[in-house]
């Protein structure tokens, strides 16, 4: 096991999968010499050439649409969006084309396409470069959705994504790229989709969080421990498919649920989790679940304003106190 960064983990898996399968290639803006804004393909063009590490024009519809077309025609493309916010530029290609092609053509198509990119706050990029948009991709059927929170998960989930014969939207968080952790050296190491992970065991309250909020939930759990509240932290890792069983089992034990994400709270994926838990484990709940997410306004530039829009560690702690009635 080597300790590497989240960005390095992604780069490592792209390289390994490209070595293993020549149908795999990467295309996107500035992926070649720059190696992507966060270095996730740094120097890979030196090994694989610019045919397989392909700089594109600034044309998101073409990047994603060409990915779909190439996937239908036998390649296994990784289409990179520099920021997930730009998915709205090519929304038709994602939601009307990628999501629907296999189904509407009666199962004719196999679409081994990965669309990946980064999102989120923390770098003062303001309204159109700081959003967390993964919930929308859970809302429109037809793509799998992965959100790794650690370097090992980034590696394991990305390998699964590249080898999957379905389109996968892969959400990285810009603030996680420099975080480090152990990643297995094994070039076959992968993590199946639909398996949540319990990041910390606890008995009093269940916190479900993804991406950057996994570490914030763990911070909150540390705080709560000081107050004698034992929090269990669950990271779903993929939203489609979603491992409701692990959350359900945890709630049966704790009787309390807080879901937190950086994505906007209203209709954020946490709402779906709470609905499902309500259906599966209503009589085990001792309190109405709490759902935390970004406020219903665009993300402002000013750092303090940005922080005011997204949930804080204190918000998570307070929510856990509230559902615990103490």
């Amino acid at each position, binding site marked *: 096991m080597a300790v590497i960064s989240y960005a390095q983990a992604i780069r490592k898996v792209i390289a390994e999968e490209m070595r293993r399968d020549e149908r795999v290639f990467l295309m996107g*803006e*500035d992926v*070649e*010499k*720059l190696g992507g804004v966060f270095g996730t393909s740094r120097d890979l063009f030196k090994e694989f050439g610019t045919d397989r590490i392909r*700089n*594109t*024009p*600034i*044309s*998101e*519809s073409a990047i994603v649409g060409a990915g779909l077309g190439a996937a239908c025609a036998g390649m296994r493309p990784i289409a990179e969006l520099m920021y997930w*916010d*730009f998915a709205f*530029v090519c929304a038709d290609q994602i939601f009307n084309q990628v999501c629907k092609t296999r189904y509407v053509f009666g199962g004719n198509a196999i679409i081994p396409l990965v669309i990946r990119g980064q999102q989120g706050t923390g*770098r*003062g*990029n*303001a*309204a*159109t*470069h700081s959003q967390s948009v993964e919930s929308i991709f859970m809302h429109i059927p037809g793509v799998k959705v992965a959100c790794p929170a650690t370097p090992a998960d980034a590696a394991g989930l990305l390998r699964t994504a590249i080898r999957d014969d379905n389109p996968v939207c892969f959400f990285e968080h810009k603030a996680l790229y420099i975080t480090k952790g152990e990643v297995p050296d094994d070039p076959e190491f992968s993590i199946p989709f639909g398996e949540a992970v319990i990041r910390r065991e606890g008995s009093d309250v269940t916190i479900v969080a993804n991406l950057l909020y996994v570490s914030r939930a763990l911070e909150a759990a540390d705080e709560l421990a000081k107050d004698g509240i034992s929090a269990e932290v669950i990271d779903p890792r993929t939203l489609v498919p979603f491992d409701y069983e692990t959350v359900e089992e945890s709630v049966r034990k704790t009787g309390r649920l807080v879901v937190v994400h950086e994505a906007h709270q209203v209709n954020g994926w946490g709402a779906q989790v709470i609905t499902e838990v309500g259906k599966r484990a209503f009589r085990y709940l001792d309190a109405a679940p709490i759902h935390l997410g970004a*406020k*219903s*306004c*665009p993300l*402002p*530039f*000013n*750092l*303090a*304003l940005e*922080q*005011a*829009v997204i949930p804080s560690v204190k918000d998570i702690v307070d929510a856990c106190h509230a559902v615990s009635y103490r």
Partner: protein
Amino acid sequence: MIDEKKALWIYKTMKEIREFEETAWTLFTENKLRGSVHLYTGQEAVAAAICSQLTDEDYITSTHRGHGHCIAKGARLDFALAELMGKATGYCKGRSGSMHIADFNKGNLGANAIVGGGLPIATGAALAQKMQKKNHVTVCFFGDGASNQGTFHESINLASVWKLPVIYVCENNEFGMTVPVSQSTSVRNISDRAKGYGIPGETVDGNDVEAVFDAFARAKERALRGDGPTLIECKTYRWRGHWTGDPETYRDREVTEEWREKRDPISLFRTCLKARNLVSDAALDAVDTAVAEEMRKAVEFAESSPEPDAAHVMDDVFYEG
């Protein structure tokens, strides 16, 4: 033709932009500015020569590299810098930073952090001007990279068919981030694309104030006559990296040096004014001093301005009367 008054205005505006950008650079290196900051240094002639022919009734849309357009369209340095620093006194209450700055009062419909995002908006502003029978135009500034977005095609086609009073100004600074135009773009001259839309296209030296001024004057006349849009390509070069922090490994430092030394739009304009005997050196020097002082005050203002109050973070999502 550029008369003395316009010449002074253009010169002053270029100086303001230069001072502003270089100050922003310094503040960024001092950690007083954060976020994505894209500097316009080296491209000043385009914004200044074009906006010298606009009034507050004319609109512009701008880009992520928008400080120059913003200042040329009448923004004050102090409010603009305060915005870059995220202060409450900034043009957008500290919400926009560098990439989303706007001052609608001056006809500036905003910077746009989505590459190609401004083209349809400019087209719509021109549509409104036409429907309201206003004798004004809209200028759409965008980069070479943006000309490869679908919005470029959709917007210009629409404006051509509807004969809208909009002038599309492509600032070709040779790179879209780290990618050279030759690698991303199907034509050498982006103005060639005008043919596909049945409108005039023209490529000019974007560092030559007079060339940009004249090309724009023709395009504006055509727009006001009701004949529709024009595509002007201004060939230029950004002196700084794509963003503050760009290692610039994708381009030759010597080429950049050459642009700085031989093609500085401000020195070129000074030389031109001298040759034309239009403005005295003393008058230009006085502008330099005044602009430096204006900038110094702007820094003082921005640095001493208050941070926005988080209690108002949810304001302005909707208009509530």
